[in-house]
């Protein structure tokens, strides 16, 4: 079984994000970049599938040379090889990204593609589904469970307040949700072996954005907390605020 996991380098979720001088990108200074947390579920599921059925796991990302670090992390977790599709400059939109990925996937022809349900930087949650549409493959989005048997898959899609049970054929694109599995830590032997595993680089070609990022606006600063009073006198003021300002009573 040929398995592909799509991953992305993103800022750690506890980073303090600052908008850069151009107003359209984030200032990377002092930010720790990590493997997108949802992609960890994708890599774990790819590795579990390989462990159960044999085959190879390839991890692929589109990004700058610094994304090698996240690919090496995946190799240390146990992936067999990595592909870096080099792209610098403005980030590709979901359409352009799905298009270049689809072209590369036609070349790699895996049986299964796993990706995170979304990247935690742009929160677009579109690439997996668009990719399946472009390839004409089945797609389980927001996978909460996933199983393979006899050349087809069954799984559940996490929906608001419940689950949908779905089955489908291979090849397929699976977008992985939290809870699908418990991602492993890279073990130390895996880390030592990672540098000996192949990491292929190629250029992204012919990508064309249909959307343009105009501006990034940080959320408004939180208002300073106010002390409304002390002791019993504060109760009346607090009640008034809860009723008339916060409107929660």
């Amino acid at each position, binding site marked *: 079984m040929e398995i592909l996991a799509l991953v992305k380098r993103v800022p750690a979720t*506890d980073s303090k994000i600052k908008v850069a001088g151009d107003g359209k990108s984030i200032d990377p200074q002092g930010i720790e970049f990590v493997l997108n947390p949802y992609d960890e579920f994708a890599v774990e599921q790819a590795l579990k599938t390989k462990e159960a059925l044999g085959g190879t796991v390839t991890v692929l990302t589109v990004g700058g040379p610094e994304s090698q670090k996240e690919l090496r992390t995946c190799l240390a977790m146990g992936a067999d090889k990595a592909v870096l599709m080099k792209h610098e400059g403005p980030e590709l939109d979901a359409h352009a990204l799905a298009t270049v990925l689809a072209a590369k996937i036609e070349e790699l022809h895996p049986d299964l593609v796993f990706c995170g349900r979304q990247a935690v930087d742009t929160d677009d949650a579109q690439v997996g589904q668009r990719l399946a549409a472009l390839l004409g493959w089945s797609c389980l989005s927001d996978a909460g469970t996933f199983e393979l048997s006899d050349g087809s898959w069954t799984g559940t899609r996490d929906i608001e307040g419940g689950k949908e049970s779905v089955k489908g054929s291979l090849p397929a694109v699976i977008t992985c949700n939290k809870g699908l599995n418990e991602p492993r*830590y890279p*073990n*130390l*032997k895996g*880390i*030592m072996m*990672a*540098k000996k595993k192949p990491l292929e680089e190629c250029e992204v070609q012919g990508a064309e954005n249909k959307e343009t990022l105009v501006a990034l606006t940080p959320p408004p600063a939180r208002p300073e907390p106010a002390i409304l009073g002390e002791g019993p006198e504060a109760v009346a003021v607090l009640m008034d605020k809860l009723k008339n300002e916060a409107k929660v009573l």
Partner: protein
Amino acid sequence: MSRFKGVDFYAVDGLLDDEERMVRDSVREFVDEEFMPVVVEHHRAGTFPAELIPKMGELGFLGAGLRGYGCAGLNSVAYGLILQELERGDSGLRSFVSVQGALCMYPIHAYGSEAQKEKYLPAMARGECIGCFGLTEPDYGSNPGGMVTRAVEDGDSYVLNGVKMWITNGSVADLAVVWAKLGDEIRGFLVEKGTPGYSTKDVENKFSLRVSVTSELIFEDCRIPKENLLPGVSGLKGPLSCLTQARYGIAWGGIGAAMAVYEEALSYAGNRIQFSRPIAGYQLVQEKLVWMLNEITKAQLLAWRLGRLKDEGGMDFSQVSLAKRNNVWMALECARKARDILGANGITDEYHAGRHMCNLESVYTYEGTHDIHTLILGHKITGIPAYD
């Protein structure tokens, strides 16, 4: 849950390679997710989190610096970073891994027969066989050469008699590496748990290293097969070479404990308001925080350089003494200052500084006391030993 970010004022990260950083981050995440949620309950109960041993084996923490036999084969800096991250959690957790790797697996790897290596090392790397190291005796601590534990040859066996004291992992160990005098010569012996004549008794009611088992090992006509002698070494240099390995790791461990208490004190000082402002805004508190940062930064550079020297083959045991002496001392001072900054809160286990402070009192004393390392260095630079 907040992630531990470490302290890196001098961009020491830039001195590490990708693998070293990845090892560090992997252990850091393990400590955050698996150990920190349980440390306080184990500390209160005085128990070691044995449930983490298989996972530590699987991740490759045990004997990580050794090559072959299922060990990860890391370089010395990566190995040191593991111990740094573990001790950021607790000195007891780091002690477990130090004893397993540096004090038990190392002598088998360096001085054991091929059969001994095959039998024990892979199981020890997986955490299925736990080791302990019996050198110190009730009356022989800083002077291990005076030991009174004896081995006597008798047919196909050696018969051991004596008592070892302050032995980390003692009662939980499946295998004890025991140093005893055979005639006039110190030799290493492998004693398996359950051997008749071998018993253990735990040290109870400790103030320090509560997340670690400390025991007394008792040998009464304990008969072991002759093939359990470590063939490759005789004399005090056997156990001392193990201690050099362990002290190397402790020099890194101290940095971890110091970073933990520094981060806690810095965060507390920023939030705790007295009079008109956070206490971080007062000169006396700033002086303490800066002292810690200053010492942590120096300790990081010492440890990093020591690691590179170790891999290049140019490390002298006296350089290890300097790093152990400095880094554990500064960690203990950091913990005391952090406890001070935390005020009354610092005496409860809601904060980590008090636990680290008590632990570091042990680390200051074991593996060569602070004063003994001073004398090792004094001997080195003057050529005159201050001990007999």
